[in-house]
């Protein structure tokens, strides 16, 4: 399949900085994919997304978006993308609806009209529908100065979706949203991703949001630490085990011998299950257990493991 985002040997060094913000990274994103770009603060996520969206120049490397070069065909690239920025980029002197109208006019979707009531019905319907969905309909015509951080974030999301982009870049999109709004937004974004086949390129601090991604690219210190599916990330990087204990530890030890258990500092038994299922292990145990904890990895644990390992490696270097 032809990739929709092609990044090859991308490097970025900011002026007056000795460190590389992005260090020779390469990856591909495919049409309709939900691609999560994860990493700790300062890993190079926002730098990469800024370069991909043409707002920041790269130091070296090759990037094409929908087949267009980000440097020589920047306007064509911008026609194909939508972006929700990490920092709100709203005009506080305008109302919420005026900010949306400004956006659709800049993207050439609708001709400029000085009043909302003069805009086409289709625009009015789309704005109302999205505002209703995100719960800011009654505030649409209020000045932005009265908006909370969460409301501004919702407004940016409405704005970013108005021009139906082929690729939607989301830089920490749910920052500042409460749990319910976050869930509602993700329900909607998943619908956009599936129904409209919009490619989603996400950076987030909420690791659990990456669980829904088709693939995860983990960056740390400007380099790719992992690239694969969430399942691959969990399977390859985190140990799966059962933690067992019994009053009669010697009996339990002998029954667990075929599974080569690891003894923890406080004498408990850690049995890894790469080949077998937990059930197969438990089936062999006759001794009454005083403890049984099943440890299966989450993306967050895999993420922490990778980031911490990479940080240690970087420190060692």
């Amino acid at each position, binding site marked *: 399949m032809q990739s929709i985002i092609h990044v090859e040997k991308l490097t970025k060094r900011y002026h007056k900085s000795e460190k590389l913000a992005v260090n020779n990274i390469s990856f591909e994103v495919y049409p309709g994919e939900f691609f999560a770009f994860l990493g700790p603060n300062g890993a190079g996520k926002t730098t990469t997304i800024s370069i991909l969206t043409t*707002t920041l120049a790269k130091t070296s490397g090759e990037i094409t978006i929908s087949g267009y070069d980000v440097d020589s065909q920047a306007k064509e690239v911008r026609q194909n993308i939508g972006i929700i920025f990490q*920092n709100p980029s709203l005009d506080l002197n305008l109302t919420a609806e005026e900010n949306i109208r400004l956006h659709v006019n800049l993207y050439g979707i609708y001709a400029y009209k000085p009043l909302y009531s003069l805009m086409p019905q289709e625009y009015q319907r789309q704005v109302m529908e999205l505002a209703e969905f995100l719960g800011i309909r009654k505030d649409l015509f209020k000045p932005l100065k009265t908006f909370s951080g969460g409301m501004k974030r919702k407004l940016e999301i409405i704005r970013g979706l108005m021009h139906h982009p082929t690729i939607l870049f989301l830089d920490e999109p749910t920052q500042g949203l409460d749990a319910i709004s976050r869930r509602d937004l993700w329900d909607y974004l998943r619908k956009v991703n599936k129904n409209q086949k919009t490619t989603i390129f996400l950076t987030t601090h909420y690791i659990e949001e990456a669980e829904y991604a088709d693939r995860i690219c983990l960056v740390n210190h400007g380099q790719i630490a992992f690239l694969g599916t969430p399942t691959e990330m969990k399977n390859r990087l985190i140990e799966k085990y059962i933690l067992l204990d019994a009053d009669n530890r010697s009996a339990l030890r002998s029954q667990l011998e075929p599974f080569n258990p690891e003894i923890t500092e406080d004498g408990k038994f850690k049995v890894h299950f790469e080949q077998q299922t937990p059930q197969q292990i438990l089936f062999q145990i006759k001794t009454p257990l005083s403890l049984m904890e099943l440890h299966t990895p989450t993306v967050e644990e895999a993420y922490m493991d990778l980031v911490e390992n990479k940080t240690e490696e970087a420190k060692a270097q």
Partner: protein
Amino acid sequence: MMPLQRELNAITVIAAREIVRAFRDWMPYLAYSAFSPVLFLYVLGGTIAQNLSGGLSYNYLQFALLGLIVGSLYMSTMSSVTSLVQDRENDFTQEIFVAPISRYSIILGKIVGGTVTSLLQLFMFFVVALVMKISLAPLAIAFILLLVPVICFSGGALSVLIASIFSNSPKGVDQMVILISFGQMFLSGAFIPVSNSSGVLGILARAMPMTYLVDLLRGLVYQGSPAYSHIVLYNPLIDLAIVAAFSAVFFVVGTFLFVRGERNR
């Protein structure tokens, strides 16, 4: 939407934003538009007229009115365009610069918005002139209105260049705009005659873009009158050519540098 139509739409919406913003923040806008003509024309012009008029062979207040209109519209557009740097501080330029439109359309939209908002100031100049009984023929008013876009584009283009050089410091941009615009007001002959300036002051006067704008307007207004030879420095066509050259260079170089500054961090 066709590419050209899209660009025109973008220019319109960016200009409209400037106008809406000015009216939303109406107190300072109204105060500046209303009081700067009073301050410049009545206080400054009036004081000079009372003390100099005996030595001049033409009506000083009419001379100053034309120069001050040019200077004020020029300054007003400059201030409006430098809001680009404020937008950058507030992260709003991200939204504009990621839109699929030409960077020149963005700057042009700012200039058009600044031009429209400066019209209130122009109207106030006419009101103050009427109160002060400064005669202005209908043809002179037509020339002024005709040159408003030229004056504002010239001021806006210089402002983009200043904003591109001092893009990391909104305060620095404001200070430079004040310094350069007042420097031009004093040296260009806007309200002090410079036809006899020589030496360094003469060179500086001829290095100021505003000199040619002021001279262009006066050249059109005074054409055929005895005052023409005392006041006007160059043929209006020469003024227009120099203004066009200055403005085009400032606009293209300023926009290029500003955009490069945005992307090359």
